[in-house]
């Protein structure tokens, strides 16, 4: 453990990885706003260097035994010290690489996707800002630094989601995302303060060490764990605060890919991994997390079953997969969560980027419309999307299969079988809605006349296609790296792996579940002459329930409108105007009025004056004689 800043290659690489995107953000915003190509070049250059540094760090420290820490004094106030530094351990190294890689690919992809946008430079500036915040978040050594960049991630996601600000819905979605995650962040912040007050500092390694139990009572640990988990709920779109994520699809598609695969929403799960030993000291908290993860996964799966918007489907699936990761982590398997996070980052980015190609080429989000316009003739994205969908559904040999299997194994370890059942149900639903989309897209609709449409010979097609192929390769291959990764984390002192491999039957059941989902989807959508109507859509109220997101959004909207705006804010405003201000105005009016009254005594009819004189004399008499 190194507490002083010595200039070695690791440190230089870390600084380069984390600082360059910020530099490119500043440069773009200040100088090159009007030079599109220069801006893009700056941003991509910076993220390339970050990626190289990250890979360098990962390779150098593949056999890392103890975590490396670097600290520099940043802020000192009283007895509060906030250092700036880096923490290099398997979690952060892997995440750093994943984030840098996905950012790099997305930025490359955006060259084509955003080519015609007038906010091109701004887009790249925000991308750089986002990359900077996210990279720093991953290698933060203290919760403070993590929180700071956590907030910045929220900010840059706000800017990116609301990127097309002329659309009201986009700025609304950005606002919603920001405020809802902020709500979680407040809980996070409070949990952080609670830990700070009792521990004195917020070093992540110290939080994770067993010594914490000596300084904090179990109740306190539970409370602060739950509060910190509030941040995860917000950022990773878990159960009560999940509705911002589907709306966040208003942003450009590459942004969705970036936000919902490896970065913003994954930050929540990443935080869980970061504080896994700390969280696992409280069984109650872990139970709550497990429940929240399960609810989230099931709810969002049902929502995905009825959506017609291609990005929305993937958004719901993101929520559900995040819930799945939380389940795995809360079930006690650190590796399960982390592994699924990694694989998910790959295939979810791929899914979004493929969707982006369709949207870009065909100009619509509706899957039926895409199908009608001949989306399947875009070969590369169709194939890539099928691969990614298979991974998402958990079919072997794609990466998702392996990571899902690990999570299911962790769930099987639990005493209560209900969690495993829920997990399998989730897997089934996932396979169903994934392939529902795929089949709608791929199988030509017999009822519609075919339209020859060759407009897809698009300029940015291959710029977009490149990253797709890279990601598809990763998706296919990553699953086979389970062993090395497990070793990598095995070195990590915090790793508490629950995976014992005693459930030989589990992979078969998992495959069977996924396959049954696939078959159901095929029966309803893929078959020749199929009705192309899902079983849910036949049940009116269920369809309404699912497509209205279980009425959660309406509830929030109503809640904010009525309780926040009308009742509390309205009352406060009324109090300001009617009570405080009016009271003061009345006071001043009364003062003026009493002045008038007193002046009456001087100016009015002589008789009043006389009377006043007499009264005063009488009162004086009373005063002097008694």
């Amino acid at each position, binding site marked *: 453990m190194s507490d002083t800043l010595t200039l070695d290659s690791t440190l230089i690489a870390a600084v380069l990885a984390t600082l360059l995107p910020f530099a490119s953000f500043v440069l773009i*915003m200040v100088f090159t706003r009007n030079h599109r190509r220069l801006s893009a070049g700056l941003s991509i250059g910076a993220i390339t260097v970050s990626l190289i540094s990250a890979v360098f760090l990962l390779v150098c420290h593949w056999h890392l035994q103890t975590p490396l820490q670097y600290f520099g*004094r*940043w*802020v*000192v*106030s*009283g*007895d*509060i010290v906030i250092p700036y530094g880096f923490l290099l351990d398997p979690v952060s190294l892997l995440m750093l690489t994943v984030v840098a890689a996905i950012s790099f690919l997305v930025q490359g992809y955006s060259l084509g996707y955003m080519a015609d946008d007038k906010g091109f430079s701004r887009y790249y500036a925000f991308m750089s800002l986002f990359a900077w915040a996210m990279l720093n978040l991953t290698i933060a050594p203290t919760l403070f630094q993590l*929180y*700071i*960049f956590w*907030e*910045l991630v929220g*900010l840059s996601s*706000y800017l990116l989601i*609301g990127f097309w*600000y*002329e659309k*009201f819905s*986009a*700025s*609304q979605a*950005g*606002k919603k995302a*920001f*405020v809802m995650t*902020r*709500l979680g962040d*407040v809980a996070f*912040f*409070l949990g952080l*303060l*609670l830990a*700070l*007050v009792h521990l004195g500092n917020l070093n992540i390694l110290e939080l994770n060490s067993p010594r914490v139990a000596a300084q904090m009572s179990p109740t306190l640990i539970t409370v602060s764990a739950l509060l910190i988990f509030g941040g995860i709920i917000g950022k990773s779109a878990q159960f009560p605060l999940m509705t911002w994520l589907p709306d966040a699809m208003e942003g450009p598609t590459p942004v969705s890919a970036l936000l919902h695969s490896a970065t913003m929403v994954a930050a929540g799960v990443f935080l869980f991994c970061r504080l896994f030993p700390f969280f696992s000291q409280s069984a109650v908290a872990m139970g709550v997390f497990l429940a929240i993860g399960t609810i989230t996964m099931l709810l969002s799966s049902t929502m995905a079953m009825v959506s017609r918007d291609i990005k929305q489907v993937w958004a719901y699936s993101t929520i559900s997969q995040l819930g799945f990761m939380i389940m795995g982590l809360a079930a006690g398997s650190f590796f399960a969560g982390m592994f699924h996070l990694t694989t998910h980052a790959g295939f979810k980015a791929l899914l979004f980027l493929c969707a982006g190609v369709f949207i870009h080429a065909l100009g619509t989000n509706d899957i039926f419309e895409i199908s009608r316009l001949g989306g399947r003739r875009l070969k590369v994205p169709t194939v890539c999307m099928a691969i990614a969908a298979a991974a998402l559904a958990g079919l072997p040999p794609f990466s998702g299969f392996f990571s899902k299997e690990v999570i299911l194994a962790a769930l099987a370890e639990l005493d209560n079988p209900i969690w495993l059942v829920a997990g399998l149900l989730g897997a089934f639903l996932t396979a169903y809605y994934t392939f529902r989309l795929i089949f709608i897209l791929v199988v030509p609709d017999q009822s519609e006349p075919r339209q020859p449409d060759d407009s897809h010979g698009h300029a940015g097609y291959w710029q977009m296609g490149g990253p797709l192929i890279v990601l598809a390769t990763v998706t296919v291959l990553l699953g086979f790296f389970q062993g090395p990764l497990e070793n990598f984390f095995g070195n990590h002192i915090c790793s508490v792996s629950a995976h014992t491999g005693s459930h030989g039957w589990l992979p078969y059941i998992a495959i069977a579940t996924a396959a049954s989902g696939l078959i159901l989807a095929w029966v309803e959508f893929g078959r020749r002459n199929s009705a192309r109507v899902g079983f849910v859509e036949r049940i009116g109220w269920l369809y309404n329930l699912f497509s209205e997101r279980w009425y959660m959004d309406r509830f929030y909207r109503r809640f904010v409108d009525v309780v*926040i*705006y009308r009742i*509390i*804010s*309205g009352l*406060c*405003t009324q109090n*300001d105007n009617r009570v*405080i*201000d009016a009271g*003061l105005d009345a006071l*001043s009016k009364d003062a003026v009025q009493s002045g008038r009254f007193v002046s009456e005594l001087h100016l009015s009819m002589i008789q009043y004056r006389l009377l006043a004189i007499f009264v005063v004399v009488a009162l004086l008499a009373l005063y002097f004689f008694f």
Partner: protein
Amino acid sequence: MEFTGFPYLTAILISCIVGLVVIILIPGQRQVQIKWVSAVFSGITLLLSIYLFFAYDKSRGGLQFVETYRWVKTPGITYFNAADGFNLPMLLLTGIVFFTGVLTMWELDKRVKEFFAFYFLLVTGVFGLFMSMDLFFIFVWYDVSLFPMYLLIAVWGTTRKQYAAMKLTLYLLAGSALVLPAIVFLYAKSGLNTFDITVLMQPGTFTAAEQKFAFILLYIGFGILAAVWPFHTWSPVGHVAAPNGVSMLHAGVLMKIGAFGILRVGIFLCPQGWQYWAQLMAVLAVIGIVYGAFVGLSQTDLKYVIGYSSVSHMGIVGLGLATVSVDGLNGAVFQMFAHGVMTALLFSAVGYIYDRTHTKVIAELGGLSHVMPVASAFFIIAALASMGIPCLATFWGELMVFIAAFKTYPLGGVLAVCALVISALFMLRVVQHTFYGPRKEQYAQLADVPFDLGLPRIILLVVLVVFGLYPSLMFDMIETASIPFINGLP
């Protein structure tokens, strides 16, 4: 007369006063000359305050750049200026806001001479108050800074300006009517025949009961100026009515006078009274934070929103002061500085927009990012600062205050932190309805802010970012005063 070295502090005052005199001597038709003179003299004060900020010896701490002159001997009135860790940030803030305020009013064309003359007078009072260590002078400077405000709002203001000016003046005079008896009371009770704060603040000068009595008077008196909750209604109205440069000074600096007065007079002289009333201060501050945010949520006027956000932010300052701890004081003073810069930026940005669109009603604006992206960016960044986004200066002040409050008043701390969501909500609402949305026809011809007009905003923005990225610059300074002070408490 005792001066150690060159009297920098007096030099600031003198440059203000000389500027004032020169402005008065220039004929009123020569508007450009007047503006240049104002810019030059305010620039001098800015440079001096920056110099002071960096020349202060942090390792030595304590009072530096001391200038004393026994002015009136019999009652013990001393012209006593000094700089310490508390007032240097305020002086720097005043210098920055003063200079940028002058630049912001560059486009003024109505009674330019009178405007800048009053502006200089106002700032003279503010500078004097921040640097003075003598109760008598503090009171005099306080009133000097109040009186030009009335004219500046009543003559150059916009919305309901007469009402606002009158209300503001009455409120602030009511405040000074509470401060004066408290000062006289302390002066009389000490029996030391001096107004010198450094003498009066020696432990044992006042009994606990005297401190309690004097502190509550001082707290409410200065608190009115700091927009402490039930006495806050003058400030949004005043912000709205005042011309932009004045709003900047008003929200950026003048409200700080209140908080600084509580610190310098109330807390320094009556530490026991401070500890006694701290709970009350905390309750009012928390109410102010939450309440300001909620009221800001349903405002329809751009400047009203900023005004109420100021109420909320000054609540954070009050909460910091109420915690009776090093962190709280650090956070409070930092927040004063950061909020001053931030609000100045907000008003400066609004000023540009208002001068072009001639409306401050949020519903009438919209889509401004299309036509003036840079001007919008200034506002949006300031709005982000107001939400407490990290890497902008306000974050650190809020952070320190919340940490300190969480230790002392857990419930209050929690409520104050929760108000962050509301303040995010209302700021984003404003940003969304003002700058986002489709392009509007009536604003299609507007030009973006050119470099020379953007300069004040750039300066403020840079300050905001510099102190956001490297807050230690300020915390180290404040600590030289706050740590000895807290350690010296009985």
